[in-house]
C-alpha cells in the first residue's frame, strides 16, 4: 500500500476529473447564481467511521482545560469551551491526530468544527457496528456483526431528509453492516432488516451524476422504457398475461416489493437537479466491485468526488463511509492494521507506545489528506447564506474509544451545522471529571500510566438523539417502546469494567446533548 501525499491544489480541486472548476460564486453561470440564492438549501449528512479506535486521549483531544465552562447534564456536570488551535510550522494543530496544513484546516474551519469527548456505549460493544445504532446482539461477541434494527442514517433518509424521491437515497461506501436498512419500508420494522446494500463506486457515481446538458429540442422527448417495465410487472402480478401467469400470494408480495423500488427509480428520474450539477463532468473508470476494500487512499478522493457530485446535483443527501484502511504503510511489518490496533492496547505487544504511534500517524494522515479534503471542498461551494458545508453535518466516529473493543470515550468530530442547527467551534467534554478514571483490563501499562483521563461519560446514543433532532426527525420514527435512547436494552455483564446506570443513561437520551443545538 502506498499512501499518497496530496497538495493544496488537490485539496481544492477534487481528486479526479469530475469537478472541472471550484464552484466559486463568480464562476457560476448567471442563472445558476440566481437559482442558488433563491432555493432553500437542502440539508445533508456525511458519516465517516474508522476501524478499531485505539487512539489514546492525549493524542486525540486538546487538553481538557480548553473545555472549562461547566454544562449541566442529568447524569453529572459536563464541560465545554471554545475550540482553539495553534499553528506549528505549516500545520494547524488541535491535537496529534487533528492536525493538517494550515491552509486546509483554516481558523475559519475550526470555527465550523466540534469535538465531542466522553461519549460511551453503556454496554459491552466489542467490534459491533454500533456507531449508527446497530446494536445487534452486542452482548455476544460471537454475533457481533448481526443487525437488529434500522440504523439512524436510514431513519433520516426515510423521513425528513428528502421531500420527494431522490436519485440515490443513500451513498454507501463499504459500510458492511454499519448501516442497516428495512427490507420492506412499507412494512416497517416488522418486515425485517438487512445490511444496507452495497454497490461499486462507479454505480454510485452513475446514479448521482446527472448530465444536465439541455436537449436540442429537435426530437420529442421519449418516455423512459422504465414505464413499460413497471407495466409489465403490474400485468404479470394482476394476471393480465393470461392463465399461464397465475401467481401465489407470496409471489405477489415479492413482486410488490420489487415494483415499489422500481417506482422509486421512476420517480427519481423525474426529480429536479441541483443547480451546481452543471459544474461536473461525467467520469468513468471508477472501481465497480463493491466488495474489495473500497477505502484505499486512491479511492478516498474519488469517494469524496462522488459525495460532492451527489450533493451538487442534489441526487443524494446522505453518505456513509467506512474507512477500513490504516492510511500508513508503516503497519505492514507489524502485521497490519488489525494487529497493530489490538497490540497497541496489549501488554503482550511489548511496545504499545510504538504501535500506538503508528495508529496516530495513520489517523492523522487520513484526517489531513482525505477527511479535510472533503470538508474544504464543501466549504468552497456557496449555498444560501453560507456554504454547502454549513448546510451539512459531517461527522467522524470511531469503532472504539482509546482501547480497541471498548466502547467508552468514543471520539466524535463534526464539521458544519446542518443548516444552522448546531453551535460550532466548541470542544465538549461529557466525562464526569469528579470520579476516578476507568482503568480497564486491556489498557496497556503505558496507557494506564500516561492517560488517566478515561472517565465515565454520557451515552453515545444521546448523540444520535442530537443529530436526529437537528434534522427534525420525529421521535415516533425511531424510538422503541419504553426507551428514550436509539438502542434497545443490552444487559450489562457483571464482569464489565464499568457498571453503567443504564436506566439513567437511557432517560438522558430523551434530550439532545446539552449545548450542541441552537435553540
Amino acid at each position: 500500500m502506498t499512501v499518497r501525499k496530496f497538495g493544496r491544489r488537490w485539496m481544492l480541486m477534487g481528486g479526479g476529473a469530475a469537478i472541472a472548476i471550484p464552484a466559486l460564486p463568480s464562476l457560476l453561470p448567471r442563472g445558476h447564481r440566481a437559482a442558488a440564492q433563491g432555493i432553500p438549501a437542502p440539508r445533508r449528512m456525511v458519516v465517516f467511521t474508522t476501524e478499531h479506535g485505539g487512539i489514546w486521549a492525549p493524542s486525540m483531544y486538546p487538553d481538557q482545560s480548553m473545555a472549562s465552562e461547566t454544562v449541566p447534564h442529568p447524569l453529572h456536570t459536563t464541560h465545554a469551551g471554545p475550540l482553539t488551535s495553534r499553528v506549528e510550522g505549516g500545520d494547524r494543530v488541535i491535537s496529534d491526530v487533528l492536525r493538517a496544513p494550515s491552509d486546509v484546516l483554516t481558523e475559519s474551519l475550526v470555527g465550523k468544527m466540534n469535538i465531542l469527548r466522553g461519549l460511551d456505549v453503556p454496554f459491552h460493544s466489542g467490534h459491533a457496528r454500533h456507531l449508527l445504532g446497530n446494536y445487534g446482539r452486542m452482548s455476544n461477541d460471537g454475533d457481533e456483526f448481526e443487525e437488529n434494527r434500522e440504523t439512524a442514517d436510514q431513519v433520516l433518509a426515510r423521513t425528513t431528509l428528502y421531500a420527494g424521491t431522490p436519485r440515490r437515497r443513500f451513498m454507501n461506501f463499504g459500510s458492511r453492516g454499519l448501516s442497516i436498512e428495512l427490507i420492506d419500508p412499507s412494512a416497517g420494522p416488522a418486515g425485517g432488516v438487512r445490511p444496507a446494500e452495497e454497490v461499486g463506486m462507479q454505480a454510485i457515481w452513475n446514479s448521482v451524476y446527472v448530465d444536465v446538458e439541455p436537449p436540442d429540442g429537435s426530437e420529442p422527448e421519449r418516455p423512459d422504457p422504465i414505464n413499460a417495465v413497471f407495466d409489465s410487472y403490474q400485468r404479470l402480478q394482476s394476471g393480465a398475461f393470461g392463465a399461464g401467469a397465475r401467481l401465489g400470494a407470496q409471489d405477489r408480495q415479492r413482486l410488490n416489493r420489487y415494483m415499489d423500488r422500481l417506482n422509486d427509480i421512476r420517480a427519481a428520474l423525474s426529480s429536479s437537479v441541483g443547480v451546481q450539477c452543471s459544474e461536473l463532468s461525467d467520469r468513468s473508470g471508477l472501481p465497480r466491485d463493491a466488495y474489495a476494500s473500497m477505502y484505499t487512499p486512491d479511492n478516498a478522493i474519488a469517494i469524496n468526488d462522488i459525495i460532492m457530485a451527489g450533493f451538487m446535483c442534489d441526487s443524494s443527501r446522505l453518505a456513509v463511509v467506512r474507512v477500513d484502511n490504516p492510511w500508513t504503510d508503516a503497519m505492514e511489518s507489524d502485521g497490519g492494521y488489525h494487529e497493530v490496533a489490538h497490540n497497541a492496547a496489549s501488554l503482550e505487544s511489548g511496545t504499545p507506545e510504538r504501535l500506538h504511534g503508528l495508529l496516530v500517524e495513520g489517523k492523522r494522515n487520513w484526517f489531513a489528506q482525505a477527511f479535510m479534503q472533503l470538508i474544504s471542498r464543501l466549504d468552497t461551494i456557496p449555498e444560501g447564506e453560507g456554504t454547502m458545508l454549513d448546510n451539512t453535518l459531517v461527522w467522524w466516529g470511531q469503532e472504539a474509544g482509546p482501547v480497541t473493543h471498548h466502547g467508552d470515550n468514543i471520539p466524535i468530530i463534526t464539521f458544519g451545522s446542518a443548516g444552522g442547527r448546531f453551535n460550532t467551534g466548541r470542544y465538549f467534554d461529557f466525562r464526569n471529571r469528579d470520579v476516578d478514571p476507568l482503568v480497564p483490563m486491556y489498557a496497556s501499562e503505558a496507557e494506564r500510566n500516561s492517560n488517566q483521563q478515561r472517565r465515565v461519560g454520557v451515552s453515545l446514543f444521546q448523540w444520535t438523539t442530537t443529530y436526529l433532532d437537528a434534522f427534525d426527525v420525529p421521535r415516533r420514527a425511531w424510538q422503541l417502546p419504553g426507551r428514550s435512547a436509539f438502542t434497545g436494552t443490552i444487559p450489562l455483564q457483571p464482569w464489565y469494567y464499568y457498571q453503567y446506570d443504564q436506566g439513567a443513561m437511557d432517560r438522558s437520551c430523551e434530550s439532545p446533548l446539552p449545548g450542541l443545538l441552537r435553540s
Partner: protein
Amino acid sequence: MRRTNIAALLVAIVGVGACTGDIGDPLRPTNVGGEGTGATIVDFTCGDPAPLIDAPLRRLSRRQLRNTVGDVLRQLMPPGEANGVLAAVEGELGAIPRDQRPVDSEQQTGQQAFYRADQNVGSAAVEAHYGLATALGEALSSDASLDAMGLGCLVAEGTSDAACIDSLVQLLGPVTHRRPLGDDERAFLRDEVYLAGDVVSRDDVRDVITVLFAQPNFLFHVETDGELTPYEAANRLSYHLWDSMPDAELWAAAESGEVLTSTGWEAQVERLLASERARDAIEGFLFEWFRFDQLDLPSRGTGADYEAITAGLEIDESLDDAVVAEIVDLFMHVLRSGGSFEDFFLSEVTPTSHPTLAQIYGVAPAAPGEVVPVPPERRSILARTGLLLSRAEIALPTVNSITHPILRGVFIRRQIACDLLPNAPAGAMDGLPTVDRATTGSREATEILTSAGACAACHSAINPTGFALEGFDAIGQVRGVEPLFDGDGNVTMELAIDDEAVLPESALPVSGAAALADALMSSEKAGACFTRHYVRFSLGRTERLEEDGCILERIDDAVDEGRPLREVMSLVLLDNNFRVRGG
C-alpha cells in the same frame, strides 16, 4: 521475543471459542427427535404423507444472473460478438449487489443458508437490474449486434418495418422469458413499447431490448401454481445444476414435453450432471459449504517466521485459488468417476496441477483432468490446505507460522460435522492468562487459554479436533516438529508434535487428519452434514427437518450406503416434490 500473535489467537477465541451454560451433550450423534437437546443429527425421518416443497417465487442469484446473460448472448450471436457485448456490460453486471447468506434464527452462526437463498431486492438491486437491462439495450441495438443476431433489417435507420422488430421479439422473447411468449405478451410489447408503425426507430429497438431484460420473467423464476410446466421444469433443472438457463437440448425436451416424463427427466439429469457446466454450480455449493470466503489466504503471510516456514516455496496469489480449486476438482473427479461421498471425504488422491500446492503435498503436479496419489497422512479432505485454512467465521488478516487449533476445530465442528456450538459468551477473552508464544506451542497455549471455568465445556470438543491437525503447519505443510521463532525468523525451539486427540465420536484417541476424518465418517456426522448442506443448497432455503425429512432421509441413506455421488445428487432432482410446486 515474538509475542504479537497472541492477540490474533485471543480474537479467535472471542469470536468462536468458548461457551457456557447448559448445553447438554451437543456433540453426541442422534437422530431427529432423539434424546438430548442440541445433539448432532445423523439420521432423518420421512413424514407421512410427504409434504410438497415450499418454493415461493425466487429471483435469480447474482451468479445465475451473470451466467444467464452470458448464455442468452451466446444463443443470440456467435461467441466473438457475444463476448464483446458481455465485455460492454461487465460494469453493470459487477454492480449487481452481492447476495448475502440469509441468517436463519434457528441456525447457528456458520450454518447459514446459501447465497442463492437471498431473496431480498433492495433499491440498489433494482437499480442495478435496470442499469443492466439499459446497458444490454444499448449494446444489443448497435449495428454490429443487430447484424450478429441476423437482424440486419433493423440496421438501416428509418427503413425498418414492424415485421422486422417482430422478428427481434420472436428471437429475444423466448430466451428472456425462458419460455415461449404468449400472444398477450407480444401484444403488450408491440402496443406499449415499440408501437409498431411503418417505421421503427433505433430507439424502439433499444427500448424493447431493455424491457425484455428488465421484465420479471427474466429476473425471477416465475412459476405457476400446481404442477410445473415443461419449461418451468427445465428451468428448475438447469438453474439447479448449471446455475443458468436451459441449453438447446433441454429446451427441446421442454418443447416436446419429454422433460416431464420420468425417462426424459432422468436422462436430462444425467446429461446435465455429466456436463462440464455442472462444475460452476458445484463450485458454488462447495465454496459456501466450506466457507472459502473465509479462507486464511496462504499467500497473505507476514513476518520472518512466515518467510521461514515458506522458504523454498514459490507463493503467489495463484496458490489461494489453487487450494479452493483442488477441492472442487476433487469433487468433480469423484462425481465423474462414479465415486461416493466417502471417496471424496476420505480421498487418497489430489487433482492439483498447481506446482506449489503439489510441492506442499509432496507430490508431482497432476496432469489436467488426472489425479495423483497423496501420502497417507494427506488422506481425506481435512488434510488439504483449503480446509486446513478455512474458517467458520472470520478469516485472519494474515498468516504466519502459528497454527490455530481452535479455529480449525470450530470449522470442522460447525461446517463438517454440523455440531451445534453455542457462541462464545461476552467477555470470553477477559482475564485470560498471559501466554508467552516465544516458548509455548500452539497446543499448550490453547490448553492454557481455554482450560479455565466456562471455556472448558465446549473447548473439550473443539480443541482436540484442532489438535488432531497439528501435524500440519500454518499453510498445510506436514511437519514433524513445531518450530518457535524469534523476531528475525530464527528457530529458537522445536517442540514435538502431539496430534493425539480424544473425540466425542470415538472411544479411542485418534491421531492425525485421516483418523479424524475416519471418525467423523463412521459416526455418520460427515455424511449427514453434507446432506443438510446439499438439501439447503438445492432448495434455496434452510432445510426444515420435518417438512424436508423425506429428501433428507433419502439422500442421507444413499450417502451412508456409499452410493455414487452422482446418484446422491440426482436424488433431490428425481424426487417428485422437486417437480411439483408447493407453497
